[in-house]
């Protein structure tokens, strides 16, 4: 299986308006990075309602933060705000502590092998998203930033303000849970 292009790489044309030496306006952030922000928010939250709330709050924080932003890794800065806002909201709401993965996820699809493959491929993104949403928020954030967005371990450690070893551990455990949930026997 080849290594896919990360979300950040796919969104590169949208990110290119803000290079390392310029500070975009708030509106430019929304329109140039809106899809990036929303994708990240959706992958973290797992549903559109929470993603919309999260992006709204992130945009408010971005607006405040632009005044003091120092040119650098802009998408890293946006990602840091988004992820930390997400984790703050989770902690405040305390509505979703660590939730174990379902014992027997419903992935049985009747039909011919080809049809099964086709349907499974079509439904895989939604299925993966559902599994992501079942991860503990801290694991989910690390896995999303690493595998969906494409940040390095070091960048994630900086964004989450935790040691690199902790980042590696969270990503490893998160992936392992996803693997277990995806195994045919589960």
């Amino acid at each position: 299986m080849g290594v896919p292009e990360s979300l950040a790489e796919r969104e590169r044309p949208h990110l290119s308006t803000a290079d390392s030496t310029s500070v975009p306006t708030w509106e430019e952030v929304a329109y140039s990075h809106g899809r990036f922000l929303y994708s990240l928010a959706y992958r973290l939250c797992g549903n559109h309602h929470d993603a919309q709330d999260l992006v709204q709050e992130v945009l408010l924080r971005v607006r405040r933060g632009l005044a003091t932003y120092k040119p650098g890794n802009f998408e890293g800065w946006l990602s840091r705000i988004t992820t930390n806002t997400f984790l703050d909201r989770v902690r405040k709401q305390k509505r979703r502590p660590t939730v174990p993965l379902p014992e027997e996820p419903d992935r049985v699809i009747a039909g011919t092998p080809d049809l099964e493959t086709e349907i499974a491929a079509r439904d895989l993104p939604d299925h993966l998203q559902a599994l992501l949403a079942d991860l503990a928020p801290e694991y989910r954030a690390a896995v999303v930033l690493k595998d969906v967005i494409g940040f390095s371990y070091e960048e994630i450690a900086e964004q989450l303000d935790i040691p690199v070893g902790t980042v590696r551990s969270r990503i490893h455990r998160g992936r392992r849970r996803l693997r277990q949930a995806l195994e045919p026997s589960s």
Partner: protein
Amino acid sequence: MTASGDPRASEEPWEAEIGALLGALPPVDPPDGFLAAALNHRPLYAGRTMAGLLAATAAAVVLALGVGVSNPSVVLPELDAMTQRHLAAQADLGPRDEPAAPDGGAAEAELTAGFLASRLGGYELVHVVETDELHQSIYRGRDGAAFSVFVEAGAVDWVGLPLEGLTDIGGTRAWSDPDREATIVQLGDETVTIVGFPLDEIGTLLTDVPDEARSFADRAQELVTSIVAHLGYPAG
């Protein structure tokens, strides 16, 4: 992203496989109108959460203070006013066989400066109106049809325009309203609004653009070429 070697090289195969599956997840588009609502703090999404409430409150404060609406570097074209100005100017031109003289020689002066194209395809520059904030050039075709090109200093306020009109013209962001035959693009540091443009004749604009007229003429041609490409018209 920071390059730190191939991080998957030190991972177990199953980890790389999970990572690859996640990396293939597609981007997720926000719902139509969401970003505009979020930026303008419209109540569309407000009220459901504290963030929404804060957004609505911030909007009230912004409106009360009049902050953020007078940024001179951002332009929100007043399409209704422009349409009226275009129609008025078109009516003032008179019949096609009595071409109106350029306004006080302003058009000739602009032509001399190489700022405007005297002719865009079958359309001739017949009138120029200049104010401190706005430059209006009116072109008229052989059949009497006319369109206006408004140029304003400043970047387009994309946030203030309805999202449904946002489009992409040859890789350049644009906004269009087919009902009003209005198209807005940003060329350099200027906002260019074309009103009354007969889209079905757009291909005819591609001839007779003076070679020596750089700046606006060339940019206008570039715009038109982009529009032609976007609409699938022949570029000749």
